[in-house]
């Protein structure tokens, strides 16, 4: 015999789905879900039917065909004999490098401008306001085209750099004849190694062990430096005297990597004018430079506002208390205000990074062959697979954005106020 009275199950009637508040919300949700799924199914079905009516199908096989076109800027080896898939990877690489460089520089510039805008110096603060208002309120696309046109119309053509015996050339290279900025691109010296470590081929990506070695050594140096600073702090807390360590830090950070590069025989290959263009060195096309500069300047203005909002969210009492303790203004900002402001800054900063990454697709205006230019441009046109290319491209941008979101959210979790 049981003491708990169970609700009478037999009494369930169909009408209760609508009239019983216990079930009503479920009923509504299920109906909405069914309608939504039917809508999606209708769209998918409509697409397939319409494609079939035109004798077309959905097929991603074209990705493995020969691409046949050339891309001037590529981070991984690429020739026109490679597949459309590899062209996609080249485009993806170009997208990511602009996004990374853009996020990095716009953050630095944005933080500086945001802080300066709150400066007590009237002139500095007003200048920053003007900068922010100008850049933030003019469409990014116009900035990209403007920067590109300035480069391509004002810089001399490569052949103006040609040195003829007994004459001075019309244009000169900068920085002791190492860098040439032409109307097509920037030619910088390329690092070469006389006795490099072997290159490993991981599937289709060649990975230079020399580069990995340099990265590992730098990372190890930084870690060693952190250990040193930690030890210094222990000494300071124990004895009250902080040992001088700047030269130790400098040695730890510089000597290993310099020694490694010396051992591998680092030397530079300088760009030299030959034929139509500069040969040797690394050529950075102005499409990349223009896109990066415009993205950086534009997003710096947006990030500056985010930073200002973050700083102003910290109560004045914090800086007044710090000042009362005798901390200098610069250190108040870096030690007291900014660490607290970060909590306010980071969530909106995530969406700025996402926007920046998506806006790299505007590079098409200056012929920058990113993912939009390769997969969504030339591949799409040459194969006529609009639906497949667009779907794939949307999927890739979605994945990139989700990864950026995840990384930034993890960082946010690490700096946010720890509640115990």
């Amino acid at each position: 015999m049981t003491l708990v009275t169970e609700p009478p199950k037999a009494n369930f009637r169909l009408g209760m789905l609508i009239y019983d508040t216990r079930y009503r919300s479920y009923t509504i949700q299920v109906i909405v879900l069914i309608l939504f799924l039917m809508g999606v199914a209708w769209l998918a079905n409509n697409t397939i039917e319409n494609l079939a009516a035109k004798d077309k199908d959905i097929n991603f096989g074209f990705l493995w065909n020969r691409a046949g076109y050339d891309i001037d800027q590529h981070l991984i080896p690429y020739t026109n004999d490679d597949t459309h898939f590899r062209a996609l990877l080249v485009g993806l690489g170009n997208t990511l490098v602009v996004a990374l460089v853009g996020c990095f520089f716009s953050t630095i510039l944005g933080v500086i401008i945001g802080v300066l805008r709150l400066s007590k110096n009237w002139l500095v603060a007003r200048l920053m306001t003007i900068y922010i208002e100008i850049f933030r309120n003019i469409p990014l696309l116009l900035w990209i085209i403007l920067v590109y046109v300035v480069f391509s119309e004002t810089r001399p053509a490569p052949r103006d750099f040609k040195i003829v015996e007994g004459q001075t050339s019309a244009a000169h290279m900068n920085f002791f004849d190492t860098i040439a900025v032409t109307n097509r691109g920037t030619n910088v010296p390329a690092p070469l190694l006389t006795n490099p470590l072997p290159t490993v081929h991981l599937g289709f990506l060649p990975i230079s062990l020399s580069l990995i070695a340099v990265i590992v050594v730098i990372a190890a140096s930084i870690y060693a430096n952190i250990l040193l600073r930690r030890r210094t702090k222990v000494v300071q807390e124990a004895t009250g005297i902080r040992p001088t360590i700047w030269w130790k830090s400098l040695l730890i950070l510089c000597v290993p990597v310099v020694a490694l590069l010396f051992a591998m025989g680092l030397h530079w290959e300088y760009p030299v004018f030959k034929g139509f263009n500069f040969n040797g060195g690394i050529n950075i096309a102005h499409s990349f430079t223009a896109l990066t500069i415009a993205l950086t300047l534009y997003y710096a203005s947006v990030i500056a506002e985010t930073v200002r909002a973050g700083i102003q969210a910290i109560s004045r009492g914090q800086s007044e208390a710090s000042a009362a303790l005798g901390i200098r203004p610069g250190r108040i900002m870096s030690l007291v205000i900014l660490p607290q402001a970060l909590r306010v800054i980071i969530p909106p900063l995530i969406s700025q990074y996402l926007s920046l990454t998506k806006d790299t697709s505007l590079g098409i205006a200056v012929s920058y062959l990113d993912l939009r230019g390769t997969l969504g441009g030339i591949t799409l046109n040459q194969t006529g697979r609009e639906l497949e290319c667009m779907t794939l491209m949307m999927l890739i941008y979605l994945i990139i954005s989700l990864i950026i979101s995840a990384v930034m959210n993890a960082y946010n979790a690490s700096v946010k106020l720890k509640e115990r």
Partner: protein
Amino acid sequence: MKKSVFFGALAATTVLAGSAFAGTLDDVKARGELICGANVGLTGFGAPDATGAYVGFDVDLCKAIAAAVLGDASKVKYVPTTGETRFTALASGEVDVLIRNSTWTFSRDTDLKFDFVAVNYYDGQGFMVKKELGVSSAKELDGATVCIQTGTTTELNLADFFKSNNISYTPVTVGDDSEALRQYDAGACDAYTTDASGLAASRASLANPADHIILPEIISKEPLGPVVRHGDNNWGDIVRWTYYALLEAEEKGITKANIDTVGTSTTDPEVKRLLGLEGDMGAMMGLDKEWAKRAIAASGNYGEIFETNIGTSTPIGLARGLNALWTQGGLQYAPPFR
């Protein structure tokens, strides 16, 4: 029950969508206007003039089709398309016919589900460079930066040409002719490559055409022609035979000037058939008797259209070459009208 209604509606939508592509002729007639996919701006072939009206070699074919189908050569709406957008515009039904320097290739004909109904200009890809570079052959372009329109066959030919000659180049990929020309003029590229006819047209629009030369090498075959969607054969026939009517008119000496009188004076039965004085060929493809007469009257015969827009008397100055009639050593040849 609900589901069957849903699928019923779905089937109805599909049928409607299907029929929208089947009867282009009916659509054009119902609309009272032909929608023609044109170039964004290529002087001589298809570009707006000072008043904003589209003129050119390709545009005149649009006018001829409108005259044949609707009886009025001015009832054409031109939709400017770039190399990238043109085929999507045609496939989606945004335009009825695409007459925009488009090269007939295997994959466009088969995989993209289009029909190239004729070749109105036999072309080939060439290079234009500044005279001061001192280049006289495309094979001397090793290491050069080349401006190229994206989404074109020329993009692929270019890669093949440099590869087969074992020389290198840097591509600058741009969206359309005008942007390519701006970059070329600013010196952002050493050479500009596109169809030789396009080069001649672009050269004519530069500030000082004499400073630029078109290199002698023609590196590809570029048969350019009007394109329609695959599957609507009647519409394809109309576009094809309107074009052939213009060719036949040139062969038979029918011009814009004598079209009203030639019918009465001629004894040639083919001319009579073409002008609708004998038989009823128009009815076989859903048009009236005088379709071809109106098409020819719109801008003249093929030769007249060629000479007014791109011929030797114009700044573009193209010779007939391969595009002369077959009777004069060219490739332009209309099948018999019977």
